[in-house]
Each structure stands twice: as C-alpha cells, then as structure tokens.
C-alpha cells in the first residue's frame, strides 16, 4: 500500500519510548522502517506539505509534530503554502466572517467557569 510504512513509522510515535528513540537518533529510528528516500527527506526536513502529498495521515503527522514540537496550526500553514503570520491572518478573517453564523447559549447557561 502506498505510504503504509511512512504512516507506520509516524504512527509508532504514539508510544513514549519510540518518541524518545526518535528524539535521540532520528536516522536510527527511521532506519527501522522501509521508507523511500523522498519519505526520509520529507521527515528530515519537516516538510509537512510533502508528507501530506506522500500519503501521511494528519493523525500520524500530529504524532510527529508532538515529537518534534510543531503544532497543528504551524503544520497547516506550511500545507497551505503560507507563512504562519499569513495563515493567522486568514484564520482571523475567516472567524470574523463566520461569527454571524454562531448560535450561542444565553449568558449564564451552562455554568461558566
């Protein structure tokens, strides 16, 4: 299957010991998986856009992100081909447009903090 091993290598980072292994020697960790050179390069370069195009699920990419300290929004900006500032501007503008569609409980309902 396309990208099975790529997904497997990143899925295994759900395990704390495997995350530690990745963090201490990334190349050695990846040597344990049958990856193509393009897949290895994309992981090495934190090329989220390329990893997505290669078939890595976002649900394993977030495990890689957790391992290397990159959050979903940083990943997403990269996949959009935007700087993080430009992405945040997009998200803010969208929230402003969407706000008119909100349906919220009356104040006081649901308890507050």
């Amino acid at each position, binding site marked *: *299957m396309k990208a*099975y091993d790529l*997904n*497997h290598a990143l*899925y295994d*980072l*759900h*395990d*704390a010991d495997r*995350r530690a292994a990745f963090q201490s020697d990334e190349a050695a960790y990846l040597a344990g998986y049958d990856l193509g050179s393009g897949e290895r390069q994309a992981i090495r370069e934190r090329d989220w856009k390329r990893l*997505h195009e290669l078939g890595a*699920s*976002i*649900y*394993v*990419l*977030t*495990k*890689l*992100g*957790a*391992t290397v300290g990159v959050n*979903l*929004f940083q*990943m*997403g*900006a990269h*996949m*959009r*081909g935007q700087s993080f500032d430009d*992405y945040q501007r*997009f*998200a803010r503008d*969208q*929230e402003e*447009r*969407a*706000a008119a*569609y*909100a*349906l*919220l*409980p009356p104040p006081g*309902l*649901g*308890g*507050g*903090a």
Partner: protein
Amino acid sequence: MADIVGGLGVSHAPSIGAAYDRQETATEAWSPLFESIRAGGEFLKSLRPDALVVFYNDHMDQNWLDNWPTFQVGVADRFRIADEGWGPRAFEPVPCHLGLAEHIAASLVAQEFDIAVSREMEVDHGIVSPLPVLGEQWLPIVPIGINVVWDPLPTPRRCWKLGAAVGRAIAAYEQPLRVACIGTGGLSHEIDGPDFGTIHYEWDRRFLELIDSEPERLLDYSMDDLRRLGGHHSVEIVQWIAMRAALPGAVAEFKYYYPKQVMGYGVIAFRSPSGPAAGA
C-alpha cells in the same frame, strides 16, 4: 427494559482537551464553546442517564491499519486514555457498562452487522475531549466506533442503519436502565492539505437544521458529498447521524454553534418521547 432517554451531538477535538487542561475554558476565545458543551452536560444530567452509548471515531490512537475496523464496539471493564503523542491526559480510565456493551455487541451481530468487538481498547479525544466537559463524574459508557478516518468508509446511510440497530438493541435490553446516546465529531473541518483550516459555516448551520428536523435527507449524501460540503474531515458528522437514528421521535431542545480556529463546533440536544419532560 431499558429506555433511551435522549441524545446529544457534540464536537470533539484535541483543542477542547488542550483548553480544558490549560484551564482556558473561561477565556474570551473559548468560553462560548465551553458554555455550549456545558449546556449539553446540564441537559444530559436532566435526562438522569445510567449509561452513555457513544458513537465516535478513533484517530489512529487505538487502531492501526493492520486491522482497521469499519464498526467497532468496546466491551471491556474500562478503557484507558490513549497517548496521542503528548502523553495520555490525566484522567482515570473510562468505565464500561459491560452488560449493555455485551448485549449491544450480540444484538448487532444478530441484526447482521459484522462489527469488530474490542475486549481491550483505549479511547482518544473522540471520547475524552467532550466527556469531562459534559460532566465531571464518569458514567459507564459503551463506545461504538465508526470509521471515518481511512478509506473505505461506510456510507452515511449505513451509519444511520447502524444507529437504528443500536437503538433497537438498547430498547430490547432486559434491565431497567436509562441510556443516553452521544455522537461526537464534526462539524466542518479540513485539517490537512492546501485548504487547511477552512470552516464551512453555512453548511454547518444547514446540517444542524437537517439533523434536527429532516435527518433522513442527509442519507442521500455520499461521504464524498459530505467532504465537499464540510471539508475532508467533516465526515465525522456520521457519528451524529448514527446517534440520531437511535432516537426515533426525539425532538431537539437546543442547538449551538461556534465557528473557531479550524472548525465549526456544534452541540445539539435531543429529548426522547420516553425521556423526562423538560424541567421535570
């Protein structure tokens, strides 16, 4: 005999768990969401359920591709909290209602649903992000997983049929049990690729209308249709469709919607005809 007293649709997301754990639920950004979910929790409390049947999906935290289930019922004493990469969140394992879980699993197979039965499983943010916001005390659950993560996906119509079969199973359970059904996930979001972060708020509002008053109209959509309408990962709304199918005759008491960051967060509350009346 068991009664289905009502149901709830509620979004799930790591962001809900993160804001909860960082104690940011009262911030300007997040309080509209948390008040909406807490309203769902108050509603749930008014139903006085003994157990929760939860339609949700795993996000490659419990299941791996060597054996990826289309439909999965958890039948165990309890479910540990999964490590999604940041370490497991600090909650006790979620207890299972073992008797009801055994019964639902057996009933679904008898009704010709070839489910996977997991005698050991972990639960991820699909269950654990909304659950502590809905109520601090864990109620025993029966987790029912519907694959929306890895193709091939079941059709929305099949998910509706599963939910209806679960509803029949609960109604046939020979214990005086009050059961609420929850569907978690959605609404619109697309969290990878060039359209990352797009919220389809017009469709979300339309969906909230349809799931309330004309849910069967949703069954003519394919999963690809839903992906086009609400973004790739919005197909999680079939968890709401399954929940809705388990509640024939139910009426929505309220629905809330909060579009924020990368998704439309939704809450909808259904009271069953057999459930306690509002304010009872």
